[in-house]
């Protein structure tokens, strides 16, 4: 084998581009630290210790990865049908709110039943929030990038209003009453926040994979996403499948929001999402728009979040550093992909 061949083989190593991008992101992050006068070695050590240095740290990483995995899967499902559901954040928030309402207001149901109801209600809330843009697209051809983004802002202000005024529990904090015990997802690694939600998220990753790549409906949805003309030529209805994918996407996002409320916080706290929905879009792209890729990408982002918090506490390096690394990963992996995808679509 010639040198050139082995070089090429090396380049075609799976996920090499991702790994290199991550390394470069960490390298540039260290440089930033160096120039701002913090010792990078110490900071990075703290970051990694905070991410998986102990049982608690590990639990934190998984906890942080969970909502992002849901939102990444949500974006992925719509994207595979050729839809840019940019408004995952809104569906996530609505899911969380509806789950919180179901969790607080229903008082008669026993444990697993009530929990299931609250979860499904959350999923339904997310799906419902996706229904309107889906309808606008099917009926008037309104572009979903714009409508879902606007719906997202509406959701953010609407939920905030609700927990600040009509649904506010007494006290200083803008939040709902705590969810009934019968609707809570059990914690799996006390004293960390890690709850059963994470397992549900993994199950959803598998479910999305199975749906897209093993069922005929998923196959049809992917065909519609890649080439609607060919799909309709072979008898696959485009509009109904896109609406279906849209609703499913909203459902997954809604379950994600519900999982946060029922598993982590136990109530809807105003502003509890630092933009999980938006992160999910980037994570989805970093994960090569594949459910299993999303699992790894969300773990990476969870690691940066959890580790970043410890790093800030221990070394006084601002949390922004881990956000910088996160941003660099996005710039190196997700952004080029996003641009390519958008432009390739335009060309056809």
């Amino acid at each position, binding site marked *: 084998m010639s040198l050139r061949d082995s070089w090429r083989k090396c380049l075609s190593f799976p996920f090499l581009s991702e790994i290199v991008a991550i390394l470069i992101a960490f390298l540039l992050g260290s440089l930033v630290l160096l120039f701002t006068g913090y010792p990078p070695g110490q900071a990075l050590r703290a970051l990694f210790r905070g991410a998986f240095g102990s049982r608690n740290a590990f639990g934190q990483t998984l906890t942080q990865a969970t909502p992002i995995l849901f939102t990444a899967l949500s974006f992925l499902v719509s994207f595979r049908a050729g839809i840019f559901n940019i408004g995952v954040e809104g569906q996530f928030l609505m899911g969380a709110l509806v789950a919180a309402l179901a969790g607080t207001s229903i008082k008669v149901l026993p444990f697993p039943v009530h929990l299931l109801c609250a979860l499904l209600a959350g999923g339904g809330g997310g799906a419902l929030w996706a229904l309107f843009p889906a309808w606008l697209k099917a009926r008037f051809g309104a572009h979903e990038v714009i409508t879902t983004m606007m719906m997202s802002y509406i959701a953010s202000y609407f939920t905030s209003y609700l927990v600040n005024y009509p649904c506010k529990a007494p006290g200083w904090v803008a939040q709902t009453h705590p969810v009934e015990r019968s609707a809570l997802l059990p914690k799996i690694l006390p004293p960390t926040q890690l709850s059963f939600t994470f397992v549900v998220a993994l199950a959803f990753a598998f479910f999305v994979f199975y749906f897209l790549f093993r*069922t005929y409906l998923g196959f049809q949805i992917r065909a519609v996403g*890649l*080439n609607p*003309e060919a799909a309709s*030529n072979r008898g696959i209805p485009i509009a109904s499948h896109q609406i279906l994918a849209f609703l499913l996407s909203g459902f997954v996002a809604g379950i994600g929001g519900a999982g946060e409320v029922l598993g982590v916080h136990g109530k809807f706290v105003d502003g509890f999402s630092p933009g999980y929905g938006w992160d999910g879009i980037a994570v989805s792209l970093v994960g090569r728009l594949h459910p299993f890729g999303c699992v790894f990408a969300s773990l990476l982002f969870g690691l940066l979040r959890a580790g970043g918090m410890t790093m800030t506490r221990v070394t006084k390096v601002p949390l922004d550093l881990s956000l910088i690394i996160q941003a660099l990963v996005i710039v190196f992996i997700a952004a080029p992909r996003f641009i390519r995808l958008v432009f390739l679509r335009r060309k056809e």
Partner: protein
Amino acid sequence: MPPLLEVRGLTKSFPGVLANDHIDLEIEEGEIHGLLGENGAGKSVLMSTIYSLYRPDEGRIFLRGREVHMVSPASAIRCGVGMVHQHLTVVPHLRVWENIVLGEEPRRGVFLARREAFRRIEALCRETGLQLDLHAWTGELPIGLQQRVEILKMLYRGASLLIFDEPTTVLTPQEVDQLIAYLLRLKEGGKTIIFISHKLREVFALCDRVTVLRRGRKVGTIVIADASEEKLAEMMVGRKVFSPKRGEEKPKETVVLAVEHVSTLPERGKALHGLNFVVHNGEIVGVAGVEGNGQTELAEVLVGLRKVRQGKISLRGEDITFASPKERIKKGLAHIPEDRHRRGTVLDFTVTENLLLGFEDEPPIRRGRWTIDLPLLRRFALSRVGEFEIATPGVDVPVRILSGGNQQKVVLARELSRPVSLLVACQPTRGLDVAATEYVHRKLLDLRKEGKGVILISADLDEIRALSDRVLVLYEGRIIGELAPQSDEYQFGLLMGGKSLVAQG
């Protein structure tokens, strides 16, 4: 004097494919050099490598005797090499003149020197006789004129070696004649041209010498005067090629498709007016006409992608006027779309997935309520690939990397993989090599022999006349007449030009 372009030992491989294997090529100044070969022989890859879109694994390129190391199309353009690709690359949302100067805009300071640009383009148009409305939106022009924009773009950049990768595949016969005339004129003007085509007629009309590739290797270069169609075909395929003949059997009396007084509205295309015809079992009905007279729309109406406003369509006696595409597929209607990239295949799907498209929700591939039976699907795909001799590195590669002929075979394999009662074949051999064309023709004739109905819509009159039992001529969305395939070309010409024979008496 050294040749204008000399290529030595050029090799280019892709994972699993050796696309060009030590190819030597010499192009003399001022000649039109034909490049022939089967689908997937490596013609496009060779030209793209010369144009520096791909980096060769090995090999050297000389221009006028001097070795050049071109690293990008931009440097190829600086060296005077221009290329018109198999798929056009003009920007549809720009005006014609903007497309021509794009990337090479004459400037005055930071401003675009519009007037100068115009002067230069107009001079160029006069010189070459390529007339164009410079202010038109490029995307609104017919393909033939868009191609003209590409040619002017190359000339504007001062290219002296012009590469044309299958320029005639997308053109109507009239446009082909015009293109040939222009190319000859460019040659007189001192340009050197490399011309890729599967149509030997065009090669004979144009080329001085021809180089033939087969499976990535060069078979040889011959002077056109020494060549015959049979000889070239044999060089390309490695065996003799026979155009299959229509059997003697008479079509049956039974009607498989009846179209009665069908009209449509003129949305997204031409309106159809009062179409009225039948197809019998065991019959190939050709549909001829100048492109854009309703052929596409007719196919869409038949497969259910276009609404019927009036009239009735029945398949084997069942009314399918308002049936969905899916229902029609189930009733045995097969369809080869005219554009295999847009309608025929999902390019990013694998060969297997493309073969599955349209059958995914039916047993036995669908097992249980939802699931696709992967092992069964794989066996199904492998057997299709074997039966239809689809040349592919595997069934799990995207269809995008297959050559045009093999993409078409994937479509054919899918459409014929269930019992067919009627096949609507649109431009089924467009862009296919002689062997693949022969193959497709044989399949159509097999269907006929088995007593199925076939509608053959094609821009290639020779193809239609060779295969059809009867020929309908479309003009402005109407069937203006019906001819026997033996009728002489003059009669076809009259009808296709809209001169009804009946009206003439």
